[in-house]
């Protein structure tokens, strides 16, 4: 999907000014299978690029969510508490957390849509 940035651990980032919306890609939700739980951080928690900020659970296993940016959590998607399957239904339409970006330079380390597509083909 164009306009988004991507990490190697299959998270997407949509930058809106100083805020980053973060979710998991369709590739990720397909690989994970039906999700039954999303473990999210709290508002005001600090996240760091490359570090775990939560997890998604499918029947078989828990998978860490890795933050593609550093900053402070300003909002979490409450809808995912009761309806984790929203991530399976439309991974790009359902952000998981919103983060106030502390260092925009870190965005340079992420892939664009074309690079991510190539990356997935080699996965």
């Amino acid at each position, binding site marked *: 999907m164009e306009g988004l940035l991507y990490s190697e651990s299959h998270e997407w980032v949509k930058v809106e000014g100083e805020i980053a919306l973060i979710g998991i890609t369709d590739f990720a939700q397909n690989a994970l*299978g*039906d999700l*039954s*739980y999303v473990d999210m951080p709290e508002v005001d928690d600090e996240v760091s690029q490359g570090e775990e900020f939560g*997890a998604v659970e499918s*029947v*078989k296993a*828990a998978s860490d969510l890795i933050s593609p940016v550093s900053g402070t959590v300003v909002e979490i998607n409450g809808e995912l508490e009761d309806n984790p399957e929203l991530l399976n239904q439309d991974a790009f339409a359902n952000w998981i957390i919103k983060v106030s970006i502390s260092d925009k330079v870190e965005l340079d380390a992420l892939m664009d849509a074309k690079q991510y597509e190539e990356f997935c083909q080699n996965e």
Partner: protein
Amino acid sequence: MEQLLTTCLYDRHISLNAQMSPFGGFMMPIQYSSITNEHIAVRTRAGMFDVSHMGEMFVSGPDAEKFVNHIFSNDIRGMHPGKVLYGMMLYPQGTVVDDLLVYKEFEAGHFLLVVNASNISKDYDWICSQAEGYDVKVGNASAVWGEIALQGPLAEKLAVEALGLDKVRELGFYTYAEMEWKGDRMIVSRTGYTGEDGFEIYCSHKAICEIWDILLEAGVEPCGLGCRDTLRFEAGLPLYGHELSDTITPVEAGLGMFVKLDKDEFIGKDAVAAQKAAGISRKLVGIELDDKAIPRAGYPVESDGVQVGTVTTGYRSISTDRSVCVAMLDRPFTELGTKVEVRIRKKTFPGTVCRKRFYETHYKK
């Protein structure tokens, strides 16, 4: 690095687009459509599992009964031909070599032992090493036998109508019948690992492939190891490597009823008797969490910030929609109703100690 084996049904799993993964030395199907779909199919209709990776060992000879009773925890004296018993082989210290089924064959002095795929070599070596001084022959026939487990409320209907196995109508729970499939010896037992009625069908590779194709055509859901685990877990059944191991005794696992201490002797008898007399210091129990977070194997269980045990298996139970697990806990935290916490990643979640069976089983008793 050891080569992974494949079962006779491998090509069929690939053509059904199964997600494959190594298990017990075999490349096995984990799921075809989804674990949830397959799990529900078994509980409400019928599903079939490729369980050809399981091990089949044949013990025969004048000392066969004496020998099997020596290595097996349950009592095989008084088994009628066609009876099947569940139990364990124990080490002298009382811990578990493997859990298995023993089939008393219709031919006198002949027994079939069905063991876990992951333990085939270990079990065969163990059985042979213990046979010293007994007039028995032990054969590992695992490579030539295929096996399908047909499980669910419609299993009998399908076995009769799709496979023509009318005889299964008279098969009682934990008994088996000798049959034939186009001249190949076939063993069909009313046993399973799901908590539902069903059959385990053992035959030649050729026959198993034909049977799979017929059942698939008849609308039976192909089911993988993913739902095999969620189904057995809900039904309170143990998995070797989790609820049983070479460091866990049957008493700690709550399986004392499959250890017959009134037998004269068997390997591990003294250790189990001593443990029963002294009392166990830890036990497998169920835990139900209040939240939706999912407890999994290896997660610590705590009370007041101190670890009091470890989860052996856990899931969001598909049939009951609860986050539940089985855990090995230290006494006295094993009392029903005790409040404990499970540590899931960085947070702890409160739960209550309960029974290990989370689902009402439907055996044909």
